[in-house]
């Protein structure tokens, strides 16, 4: 019935070269009038894990799909290991990818799924099986090798998908929100496992997520994206401590929004003068973004009333309504246990803050 079909095999001959460099320069991609990638520049060092973080529609997934070749780009260059791959089809880019949706081949067993990439690279059957089992062992699923996808939990399916992507020892590992369909506990376990495997194998990895906690936890560097641009790229610590602008400050970590005045480039807030982070702004009223750990409950200072207080394990977060009706979250040690309705006083610790123009919501 299908005698007219001819089998084509991939021509990519495989040499295990973990840790390629990935460079995107001035990459532009538009979909029907909407610019998904607006001249993106990104360089990922060999063996590095870079997370692309941003709200939905910011272009992070498009950027990842461009690297994989699943999306063509309008202009710019995508270079893997020094070779421009813009015209190389996906199946010849030597990448591994894990998708947000479960993507195991339903008609194949776990082992057959993992072997698939090696089969495409024409690895001999015995060697193929050996390497597939080895990789399954790394994700702890050897005993499920004969099962089908529908017999596995979501977390197990994503583990197999990870093994399937890693078995060929690809030059680049691309992870497209691989954890977002999983429940919280599995998500944390699996992200740590991904990080462990990635470090062990030294594979250059790009990880797309909208979950800032996830990005900060696993990435060497995080690129915060908005409207098809990279707003800032840096280590998690850099992003948190010195956000390049208010968007980054607001998106990464938790921030209190407090009305303030900008005077001579200094943020004046409840009698405190704080240094402004990021780009300079014109003087006038602003919204200061203050981290919960930069406010303290003190014996005297700004008056307020406790709304609620939650225990978070190693610390406690208390919400306080200040005398001017601003509600702030304050992070402090667990020993102090304010009760709702209690009158308290707070003080700013004096750390530099980011600021938003007053009327802009985000």
């Amino acid at each position, binding site marked *: *019935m*299908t005698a*007219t*079909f*001819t*089998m*084509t*095999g*991939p021509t*990519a001959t495989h040499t295990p070269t973990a840790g390629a460099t990935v460079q995107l320069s001035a990459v532009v991609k538009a979909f029907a009038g909407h610019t998904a990638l607006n001249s993106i520049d990104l360089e990922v060092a060999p063996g590095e894990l870079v997370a692309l973080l941003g709200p939905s529609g910011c272009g992070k997934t498009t950027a990842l799909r461009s690297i*994989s070749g*699943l999306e063509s780009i309008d202009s710019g260059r995508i270079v893997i290991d020094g070779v421009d791959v813009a015209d190389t*089809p*996906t*199946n*010849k*880019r*030597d*990448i*591994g*990818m894990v*998708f947000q*949706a*479960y*993507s*195991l*081949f*339903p*008609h*194949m*067993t776990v082992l057959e799924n993992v072997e*698939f*990439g090696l089969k*495409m*690279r024409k690895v001999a*059957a015995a060697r193929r*099986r050996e390497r597939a089992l080895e990789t399954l062992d790394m994700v702890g699923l050897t005993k499920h090798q*004969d099962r*089908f996808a529908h017999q596995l939990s979501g977390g197990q399916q994503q583990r197999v*998908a990870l093994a*399937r*992507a890693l078995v*060929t020892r690809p030059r680049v590992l*691309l992870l497209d929100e691989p954890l977002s369909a999983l429940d919280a506990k599995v998500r944390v376990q699996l992200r740590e496992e991904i990080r462990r495997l990635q470090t062990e194998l030294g594979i250059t990895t790009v990880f797309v997520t909208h979950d800032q906690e996830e990005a900060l936890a696993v990435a060497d560097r995080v690129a915060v994206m908005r409207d098809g641009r990279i707003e800032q790229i840096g280590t998690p610590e850099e992003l948190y401590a010195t956000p390049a602008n208010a968007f980054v400050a607001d998106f990464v970590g938790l921030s209190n929004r407090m009305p303030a005045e900008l005077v001579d480039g200094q943020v004046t807030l409840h009698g405190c003068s704080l240094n402004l982070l990021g780009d300079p702004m014109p003087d006038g009223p602003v919204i200061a973004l203050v981290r919960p750990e930069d406010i303290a409950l003190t014996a005297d200072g700004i008056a307020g009333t406790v709304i609620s207080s939650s225990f978070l394990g190693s610390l406690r977060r208390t919400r306080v309504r200040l005398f001017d009706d601003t509600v702030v979250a304050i992070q402090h040690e667990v020993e102090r246990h304010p009760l709702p309705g209690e009158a308290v006083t707070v003080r700013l610790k004096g750390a530099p803050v980011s600021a938003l123009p007053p009327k802009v919501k985000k």
Partner: protein
Amino acid sequence: MTANQAVRIGAEPSALTRRLILGIIGAIFLIPVIAMIEFTFRNGLAGDYTTSHWTGLFSEDSARTYRGLYEAIENSLVLAAVTVGIVLVLLLPTMVLVHMQFPRLKRTLEFICIIPITVPAIVLVVGLAPVYSVVVQVLGGSTWTLAFAYGITVLPYAYRAIQGNLDAIPVKTLSEAASTLGAGWLRVLWTILLPNLRRGVLAASFISIAVVLGEFTIASLLNRRNLQTALLQVSQSDPWVAVIFALAALALAFILLLIIGRLGSATPSRRKS
């Protein structure tokens, strides 16, 4: 009270009702078949019975008498095979391509595929007659060329069967996953999509075979011999044999249905290497 009613309305019919429905529908199908079987044993209008119509089939001179009928059966089987081939080689890849790459063309493709159901066979023939005069010049007058017309008449059925299956599997994710693992698009179609589209493909094939084996109008009007036109011809000289062959055709369709049902419901095989 209301909840109870809701439950009752949504509930399955009772065992008795189910058997009753099955019995009535079964009778509607079975009575004509039984009547046909009974008819093949009748000895003219005398009212008594004989097996001579059946045994006569295997006699030497019947081989000569019914050679035309056997040829017609062969023609119909070839037509069925070529039609299924057209569906699998043209329609299936087109549908997969539209589904994955050009989803906006889906409505158009559906519309085109549904059209044949609204066009009576006779109208189709009027349109096809001049086309076939060209086909005959190019490919000769063999009966198998009718499969081009049949390929059109089976479109609505084959489309439905395949589309249902396409909608049920994550075609895009599976193909993308396979291509990131190094598979080219033919390999994706062959090793990933086809196995997962097996149900739809088998259903489309079966329904195409059933339609082709039962087709009369187009073959008759274009003066080709297939099973149905031959049966009509034979029935004019020997109604008993015509009914015997009609029964055989029914049995064949039934067996096909069983085989395909089996294939479709079988769980993926576990191969041990």
